[in-house]
């Protein structure tokens, strides 16, 4: 086992180092080589280079997101276990961390493949990016090395170090991982919103090239999205183990794991639309062409697909919470609220998914008096969508609140007043959010964009204030019963699979949008794409590539789940003891009977 682990660790390290070194070593001579000797592009037989790089990059990104996210909440869970002395948290953190080892190897391998692909298939672009960012590769390589050291020390050192030392290793793992992501983000965001270069693309300031318009929004967006994605994959692992569990103890543990993963995913999902909105604002601010391509032009329909997917995420997350109530005694009294919550979710989902650019027949367009529908037109813009998403977030929070208080009765003297204040906060915030949404139609664009901030902050205020009141309200509360972990319908586990797949699909889709909005530019406005693939594929084709990528990713994830589960399996000798004994006996009997036949 130890040997296997060491081999794996060394292999991941080697792959990572080779990948990083390859960029520096292979591309530097190319810089010095005569220009005419280097082709700008190389083609692959049978398949387009762009599609190959697209799939590899997306797979690398998905695994990287997972590998960066899991240590974050593993550390938090471990810390909770350390502070409370509850061993279950420590075990849960370890269960999540078990998924990391294999995933890290996959991430490094895919990263190496991506690097080699770029060097071989897109030499001119790679050469230019290396020229601009050459100074960032050394810290990247070093950080990657430290990432491997901290990751394997964190995983294999579980229970081997003092808790504080182990927590420190986890913290370092997170810091190093985040730093790696920030560096890689600088390269890719530079391609979208290049800064720090002159009109000919010559570097004038490395810091400006790194700190371009969307660097920090992407950093924040990815940090949060990684948490959501990692939580969802972790929850899917819990669901997978739950469905295969044979004892109630196992079911209870993996039910809890699924719930915790989902809780992390949803907590991260709630602020994600705001981070995405900030990113959109920065893109628009950098260049209106990019902004319009993204939100109003070619890619606007992908945002409708995105809205449908995110709507599904919210619906599935709420659905899981409602099903989770079946494991709590006393939750029946809150069931009657589900239909109202669902009504609000459906309404907000519809508003969010309403397109601004309509698909209509000529007859339908004539009936509308043009390409705009007077009602849909109002719902198809950001004022309506921001309002809808804020209400969706608030509704999901209410579902969680009902789940949280399902088995409790407040015993404090001011319980009724507390409930009224909580209700009042919700009511005021909902009215405020809707008012700002409507007001947005009567002000200029700049003011309207600014209105999203008070909407966001009021929703955050409501969530924080209500949670604080709730904590005091249910202090010393009378319990109607314990949470019966493991008592949950199997379809709740399928909801967790659905969440993980939807998250992955969403990541693939939005990754394509971010890269695709450059259209015929490798580096927007600096290096033009002159390859045979310099066209925007149809939405159908893009959807197909994203779907294939997601399928491949989950095939890899199935391998990760299988390999991670091996450590908890019984030894082969022990597992097959009975079977082997039976075979031995059968063989013996057969040979005895043969001997007796021969003897007779």
């Amino acid at each position: 086992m130890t040997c296997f682990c060491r081999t794996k660790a060394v292999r991941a390290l080697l792959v990572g180092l080779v990948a990083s070194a390859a960029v520096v070593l292979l591309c530097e001579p190319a810089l010095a080589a005569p220009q005419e000797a280097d082709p700008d592009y190389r083609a692959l037989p049978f398949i387009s280079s762009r599609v190959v790089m697209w799939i590899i990059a997306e797979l690398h990104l998905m695994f990287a997101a997972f590998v960066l996210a899991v240590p974050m909440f593993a550390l938090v869970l471990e810390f909770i276990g350390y502070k409370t002395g509850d061993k279950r948290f420590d075990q849960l953190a370890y269960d999540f961390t078990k998924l990391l080892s294999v995933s890290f190897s996959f991430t490094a391998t895919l990263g190496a493949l991506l690097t080699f692909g770029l060097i071989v298939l897109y030499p001119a672009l790679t050469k230019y990016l290396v020229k601009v960012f050459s100074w960032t590769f050394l810290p990247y390589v070093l950080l990657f090395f430290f990432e491997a050291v901290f990751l394997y020390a964190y995983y294999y050192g579980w229970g081997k170090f003092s808790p504080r030392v182990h927590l420190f290793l986890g913290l370092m793992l997170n810091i190093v991982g985040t730093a790696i992501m920030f560096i890689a983000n600088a390269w890719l965001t530079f391609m979208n919103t290049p800064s720090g270069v002159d009109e000919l693309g010559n570097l004038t300031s490395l810091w400006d090239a790194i700190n371009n318009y969307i660097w920090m929004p992407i950093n924040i967006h990815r940090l949060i999205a990684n948490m959501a994605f990692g939580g969802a994959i972790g929850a899917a692992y819990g669901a997978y183990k739950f469905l295969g569990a044979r004892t109630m103890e196992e079911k209870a543990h993996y039910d809890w794991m699924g719930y915790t993963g989902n809780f992390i995913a949803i907590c991260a999902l709630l602020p994600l639309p705001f981070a995405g909105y900030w990113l959109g604002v920065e893109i628009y601010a950098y260049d209106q062409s990019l902004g319009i391509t993204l939100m109003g032009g070619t890619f606007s329909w992908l945002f409708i697909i995105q809205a449908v997917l995110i709507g599904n995420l919210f619906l599935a997350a709420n659905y899981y919470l409602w099903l989770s109530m079946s494991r709590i005694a006393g939750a029946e009294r809150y069931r009657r609220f589900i239909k109202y919550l669902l009504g609000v979710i459906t309404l907000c989902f519809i508003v969010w998914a309403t397109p601004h650019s309509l698909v209509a027949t000529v007859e339908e367009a004539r009936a509308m008096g043009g390409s705009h529908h007077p009602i849909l037109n109002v719902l198809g813009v950001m004022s309506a969508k921001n309002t809808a998403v804020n209400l969706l977030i608030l509704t999901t929070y209410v579902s969680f609140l009902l789940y949280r208080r399902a088995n409790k009765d407040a015993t404090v003297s001011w319980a009724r007043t507390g409930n009224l204040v909580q209700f009042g906060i919700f009511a005021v915030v909902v009215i405020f959010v809707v008012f700002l949404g409507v007001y947005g139609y009567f002000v200029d664009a700049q003011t309207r964009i600014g209105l999203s901030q008070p909407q966001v902050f009021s929703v955050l205020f409501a969530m924080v204030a209500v949670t604080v009141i709730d904590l005091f309200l249910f202090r010393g509360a009378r319990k109607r019963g314990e949470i019966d972990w493991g008592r949950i319908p199997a379809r709740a586990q399928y909801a967790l699979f659905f969440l993980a797949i939807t998250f992955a699909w969403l990541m693939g889709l939005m990754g394509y949008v971010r890269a695709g909005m450059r259209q015929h530019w490798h580096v927007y406005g600096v290096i033009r794409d002159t390859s045979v693939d310099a066209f925007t594929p149809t939405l159908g084709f893009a959807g197909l590539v994203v779907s294939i990528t997601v399928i491949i990713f989950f095939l890899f994830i199935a391998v990760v789940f299988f390999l991670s589960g091996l450590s908890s399996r019984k030894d082969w000798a022990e597992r097959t003891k009975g079977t082997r004994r039976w075979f031995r006996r059968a063989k013996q009997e057969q040979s005895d009977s043969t001997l007796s036949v021969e003897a007779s």
Partner: protein
Amino acid sequence: MNILILLIIVAALAAIQLFVTRWLPLNRLAWMAIWWVAVYAAFAYGINPPLPSSIVVLFMAIVTLALVAYLSADSEELASAMRAITAFMVERRFRVALLAVLVALPLLAALSVYTDLSKPPQPPTSSRTIHPPPPVSISFKGKTIPLSTANNPYRELQHSDEAAFAQHVENGRRIYFENCFYCHGDNMQGAGMFAHGYDPIPANFNDPTTIAMLQESYLFWRIAKGAPGLPSEATPWSSAMPAWENFLTEEEIWDVILFLYEFTGYEPRAQGMPH
């Protein structure tokens, strides 16, 4: 909104709740079916002008998903619904009703096919991009104008020299009424005297989702290049907007843009800013 249809739908739901359930208790599955029909009727017939069929399909998919989630969110209700379906399929007392359903389903499919084929031939549906993305720069009478950084050169006069600004706006007004108002109308609602001969009809500048969302350089591009200058990704497009660069000077185009914003009361979207 078609208020009458919506009122009939609400009244029907209320009647089922108040009267029908007295002698025929309905389980959640039945309520789901009733709600599905009611919401479909509201989307398909309760909104005027009618929603495009693509939108009705999208909305109904969401509603169906929500109703299925509602049914299965409660294990007892789900079991009750499954029992009802099983009983309908296997119990002798439902034999006639089951037979009716088995006959009705293919008949409905046939009716749907017949209705589709009976319609006169139609051009294919198209997805129209409302705001096509502008290029990085355009060439205007030999001069390159970078659209991502170009500003209206007369906008700053709004604060520094109000009289000069008013003169530019006045010039814009003259140009608008000499050239644009025939299609875009005297109130800029896209309802000029020629407007109804076009498909799509001209843009309504009072609509908060048109010029209020755009930077002035975007308007400059659209006015200067018109329909012939639309990018290929914005097709299919049948706009009748002429390329005004052939008739107006650069200053005249910037002036008419000032007038559009002055008249409608909107502010152009600012450039840059965040980061």
